[in-house]
């Protein structure tokens, strides 16, 4: 349904220019203009506008008077105030009215039109057809923007929901499944549609996911790769019950303490995490996002080497990356676990680290996995 926009400003030429510019969006919304609050009130009594954008300072009644009037009339559309007088006092007054967005003049037309389109998109909900890239891009955008909303994903036979809170997926539901399993299946759907719902429209009943968004997405990506899936199955077949690990976290902390003692202020961060889900087990100044990133990177390196044409190399004990700013990172590849160390290369002797410290912490780690 085509939306309706009303622009209110006493600057006639300015408004006519905006109206002309916005005419290219007629398939999404139509634009009416008026030059006083009185005129705007008359028009609002006849037509429902989905969005009203009004200048604040005008001869006679102000844009704020219009806002107060509309609120008294139980107006349910959007309202943006425009002003060139963005003094703290004016902004404070606007803020005190609540529920009012302010556009400071002068503004760029493209920015202005984007603002309107964003408003209508949010109100109407974004929707689209699933292809894996479009859906994951949308989810990443929601994460970056730290949005709280619900993404509905549906195909011919079923539907599911991904619940976002401040950019993190906190719950997923698909058929009878909930939690991470449901999220995996929804994000991996190849055919269907997605749409965004207001969180008030689809209220969350319980939170079933507590891993960071990046880790969840990374796990989904891993599952998407058929080769990796085969490897996982192969590994599962290889592993028997006596390979189940009861990790001794106290020992891990002991290893971390030893590392801190040996590297002193040269050690910037360290984190031991599970390869399967990126969850940290122990660390010092841990960085969950970095752990997720390097977990993914390790997987790429391991896969690339494993799938190399000559098939003559596999990832060995560790890989080391020289970073700018005197930093260096070393990732110890322990199979089901990984251990990342970020250190200052000017403060740490690499030979000592590789030949003395790492063998020692590996010994302690090994004791942690064997109990």
């Amino acid at each position, binding site marked *: 349904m085509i939306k309706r926009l009303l622009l209110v400003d006493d600057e006639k030429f300015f408004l006519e220019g905006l109206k002309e510019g916005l005419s290219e969006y007629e398939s999404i919304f139509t634009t009416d203009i008026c030059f006083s609050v009185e005129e705007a009130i008359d028009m609002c009594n006849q037509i429902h506008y989905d969005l009203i954008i009004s200048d604040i300072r005008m001869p006679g009644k102000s844009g704020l008077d219009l806002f107060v009037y509309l609120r008294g009339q139980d107006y349910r559309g959007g309202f943006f105030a425009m002003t060139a007088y963005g003094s703290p006092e004016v902004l404070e007054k606007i803020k005190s009215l609540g529920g009012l967005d302010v556009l400071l003049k002068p503004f760029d037309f493209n920015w202005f039109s984007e603002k309107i389109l964003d408003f209508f998109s949010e109100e109407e909900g974004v929707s689209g057809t699933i292809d894996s890239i479009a859906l994951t891009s949308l989810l990443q955008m929601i994460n970056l923007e730290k949005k709280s909303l619900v993404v509905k994903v549906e195909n011919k036979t079923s539907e599911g929901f991904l619940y976002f809170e401040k950019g993190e997926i906190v719950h997923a539901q698909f058929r009878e499944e909930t939690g991470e399993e449901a999220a995996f299946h929804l994000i991996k759907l190849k055919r269907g549609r997605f749409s965004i719902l207001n969180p008030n429209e689809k209220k969350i009943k319980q939170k079933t996911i507590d891993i960071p968004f990046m880790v969840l997405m990374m796990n989904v990506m891993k599952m998407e790769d058929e080769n990796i899936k085969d490897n996982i199955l192969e590994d599962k077949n*290889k592993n028997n019950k*006596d*390979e*189940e*690990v009861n990790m001794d976290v106290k020992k891990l902390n002991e290893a971390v303490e030893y590392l801190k003692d040996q590297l002193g202020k040269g050690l910037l961060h360290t984190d031991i995490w599970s390869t399967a889900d990126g969850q940290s087990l122990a660390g010092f100044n841990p960085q969950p996002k970095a752990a997720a990133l390097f977990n993914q990177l390790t997987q790429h390196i391991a896969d690339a080497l494993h799938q190399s044409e000559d098939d003559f190399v*596999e*990832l*060995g*004990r*560790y890989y080391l990356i020289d970073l700018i700013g005197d930093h260096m990172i070393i990732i*110890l*590849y*322990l*199979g*089901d*676990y990984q251990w990342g160390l970020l250190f200052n290369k000017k403060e740490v002797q690499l030979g000592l680290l590789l030949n003395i410290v790492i063998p020692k912490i*590996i*010994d302690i*780690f*090994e*004791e942690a*996995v*064997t*109990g």
Partner: protein
Amino acid sequence: MGAVINEIYRIVTDRAGFKGRMRLAVRTGISRTRAAQMEDTPDMITKFKEAADEIVGSDIDPYFDRR
């Protein structure tokens, strides 16, 4: 003490990295440090060698340091 087991640990780490070494430790339930304090009994060597062969994906005999 535990020289053979220690050598098996070395071979597995060389051929299969820390990943392999961890699998060996978990499969046998004995860490390298603990193995170094134990006697190299025939049973123990057999257990370690079988696990090591499987982890490396081939017979590890050729990799033993015979010195």
